């Protein structure tokens, strides 16, 4: 791909001198009918189908100027990349359309803009409209080292000697390059019109110095008829002449239009019929990156009202490069589509499936620390599609890493022998408390009355329920009738009540009683015989009658 173009140019006397300091562009292209092909620069604004662009980027080729393509049809000798779809420079439709599109629609629909329909091979025709291609790409040319080296003077001389009859001057190896007019308005050049609207001119490079004498000797040029393309003065015999793409200059005239210094390494940029050195051209026309502030050489990303290096235009949440992914504007932030969906899902109080990246409307399935639609997974046991009731099983209990976790449907999970908490019906993966014939989470094994977990403290079982000490006694009577405290040690139980050993006494005279003491019952209070004998007779008779009645009824109910 890197070849040196051979220029055979016959300059007839009637062609020269020209009345313009620069020849018309077409003429020059005709004249320079052989081109080295790489690297190429992109005319602007130019939009290329994404696939083609990618292919080109892989090859290290940016784009091909339109005029080059036209030339290429005729010149089959040269290896030129396949035609690219380049929007004619004269059509500013893209930009206009973009201006018409409200930013909100851009965010919601994800479609940045329509491709110009006038181009038959735009992406919309290829069915690629689903690509949310939101980044406007442009290229800003930078002369490459390769180009500079393409014209060593020695080589030129050699070629000249090889083909003396055909070549008037030394061989000119021309690196024709379309300079992209940068998108930013030129600075420090108030006189120059907006470069976007103009046909980009070529930046030429590869000049040959030779002596006027040599020219005369070659007898191919009339010294009278040639003049400096800049100052229009003739050349002194034996004066050095610079040939740039067929234009001849005094060395002192072949300088940067901005700084009037000679071009370092002979590299210059031509724009609006002026030649600039690399530095001045960047200063005047190169776009600046909205993030790092540096000049952008090469691919220019235009988005969010600024220009960016491709590597500087990133998602504000995940820092992914957005140039080829496209982005969505969300509250003034440029986000990749994933992050945007995430933000949107969070705003709606919903989760976003980590597999299909869409919002989960129903109950999410949690798996290895992320949330998913349950239907993306199948049971590790029976392979049925899962629902949100699926259980994540830690295959190595105790390990914190969850990469080995697996999902099971509820049925398979229950068959796996993992203990299920008797309270919450969920599997127990930590400590298991076994009591009352069931398994429990430590924190779910609680007092049936106060619902505080026992946490290893004693519990009291009664009728399939567990109680803490206080409530067991309170509920089941082992509080002393007299002191109302939990009875420590032996318990006296009688008359539906309980007593501490020391507190069992006659309810009438407070005399202490023992197990052997005979006592009477009055309203389920114990009364010693001495006191009972002091009770009024009529009361004793009544009490006796009640006792007899109850005893008789007990007899009927349980005849034993």
């Amino acid at each position: 791909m890197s070849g040196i173009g051979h220029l055979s140019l016959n300059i007839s006397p009637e062609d020269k001198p020209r009345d313009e300091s620069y020849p018309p562009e077409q003429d020059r292209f005709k004249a320079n009918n052989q081109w080295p092909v790489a690297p190429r620069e992109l005319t602007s604004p130019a939009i290329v189908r994404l696939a083609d662009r990618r292919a080109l980027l892989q090859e290290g080729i940016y784009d091909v100027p339109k005029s080059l393509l036209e030339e290429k049809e005729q010149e089959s000798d040269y290896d030129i990349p396949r035609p690219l779809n380049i929007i004619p420079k004269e059509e500013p439709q893209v930009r206009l359309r973009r201006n018409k599109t409200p930013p909100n629609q851009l965010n919601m629909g994800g479609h940045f803009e329509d491709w110009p329909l006038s181009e038959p091979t735009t992406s919309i025709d290829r069915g690629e409209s689903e690509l949310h291609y939101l980044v406007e790409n442009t290229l800003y040319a930078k002369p490459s080292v390769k180009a500079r080296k393409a014209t060593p003077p020695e080589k030129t001389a050699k070629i000249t000697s090889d083909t003396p009859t055909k070549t008037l001057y030394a061989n000119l190896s021309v690196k024709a390059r379309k300079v992209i007019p940068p998108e930013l308005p030129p600075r420090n050049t108030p006189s120059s019109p907006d470069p976007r609207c103009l046909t980009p001119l070529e930046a030429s490079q590869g000049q040959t110095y030779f002596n006027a004498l040599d020219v005369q000797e070659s007898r191919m040029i009339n010294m009278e008829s040639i003049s400096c393309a800049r100052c229009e003065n003739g050349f002194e015999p034996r004066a050095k002449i610079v040939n740039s793409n067929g234009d001849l200059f005094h060395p002192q005239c072949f300088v940067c239009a901005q700084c009037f210094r000679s071009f370092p390494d002979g590299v210059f940029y031509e724009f609006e019929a002026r030649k600039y050195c690399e530095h001045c051209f960047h200063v005047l026309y190169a776009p600046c990156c909205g993030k790092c502030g540096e000049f952008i050489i090469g691919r220019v990303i235009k988005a969010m009202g600024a220009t960016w290096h491709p590597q500087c235009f990133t998602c504000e949440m995940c820092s992914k490069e957005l140039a080829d992914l496209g982005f969505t504007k969300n509250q003034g932030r440029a986000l990749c589509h994933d992050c945007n969906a995430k933000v949107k899902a969070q705003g709606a109080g919903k989760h976003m499936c980590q597999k299909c990246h869409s919002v989960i409307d129903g109950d999410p399935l949690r798996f290895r620390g992320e949330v998913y639609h349950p239907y993306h997974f199948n049971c590790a046991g029976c392979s049925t599609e899962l629902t949100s009731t699926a259980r994540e099983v830690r295959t190595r209990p105790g390990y914190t890493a969850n990469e080995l976790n697996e999902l099971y449907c509820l049925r398979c999970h229950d068959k796996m022998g993992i203990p299920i908490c008797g309270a919450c019906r969920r599997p127990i993966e930590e400590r298991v408390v076994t009591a009352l014939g069931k398994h429990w989470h430590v924190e779910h094994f609680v007092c049936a009355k106060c619902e505080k977990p026992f946490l290893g403290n004693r519990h009291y079982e009664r009728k399939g329920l567990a109680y803490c000490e206080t409530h067991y006694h309170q509920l089941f009577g082992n509080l002393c009738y007299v002191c109302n405290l939990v009875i420590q040690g032996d318990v006296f139980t009688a008359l539906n009540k309980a007593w501490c050993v020391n507190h069992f006494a006659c309810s009438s005279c407070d005399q202490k009683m023992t197990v052997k003491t005979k006592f009477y019952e009055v309203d389920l209070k114990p009364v010693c015989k001495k006191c009972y004998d002091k009770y009024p007779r009529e009361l004793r008779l009544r009490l006796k009658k009640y006792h007899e009645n109850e005893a008789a009824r007990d007899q009927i109910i349980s005849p034993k």
Partner: protein
Amino acid sequence: MTTKIIRKTLEEAKDLPFAELDFSDKNLVHLEDMTRMWDMNNITRLTLAHNKLTEIPSNIAYLVNLEILNVFNNDLVDVPDLWKLKKLRILNLGMNQLHNFKVPTGSNLFPMMEILDLSYNNLTDETFTEGFFTIESLRALYLSDNELEYLPPQIKQLFNLRILALRDNQLADVPQEIGELSNLRELHLQGNRLQVLPPQIGHMDFLSPRAILKLDSNPWVPPIEDQLVLGVSHVIEYVRSDTYRYLFGRHMQANVPPPEKSERGSRRLTRKNSKASLNGR
């Protein structure tokens, strides 16, 4: 003789940290011999059962650590300001003549009171003052053998009540608010003029083996009486039924007058002839 024993007992108890004094059945008519006792604020229990005391000196208010006071079977007609005894937990005033026992209205009366026994006192409905139902700490209330005819709905304020004894009164009605006493485990209703039970009784925990409901000797409506013969648990089941709810509603609408008061005016007299009185003399 008795005086000597009392003096000795007091002497012994003087330095005890938690003195429990028992002067039961000492034939005491008054407490004038015990003036030095009022200085002993280490007394936690004072039992004066089976004596002939007609009054308790207001000096008893000095016994600030008194937890148990038993004046069972005396001739008290009135009680002094016992309410000032903030630590009193058990008060037995049974078998006296406190027809006019009244708890004054006021806050924080008997803040620690747990067991109050007022049995056999010829109490009337006038006993149930507003103040009576402010003793929220009460867990056992014995009102048997009195002349109560009406149990006020405010009984529900005594929500700690576990035992309520109303045996042998003149009650014609049990308020349905009794169903709000969720801790009640013992209810004695024998020997009253009750015909129906409020359906709320059915929702109380009287079927548990630790709960007791006594219903004998009341002029129950026949369905309840029929169930009572089979056992209290049958009455509970029946009271829970819709059938009974309907019957109860009809009964309340009909406003059936309760049976006549049974004749028990001779109770005091009977007591005079009792062995207790004889022993006391």
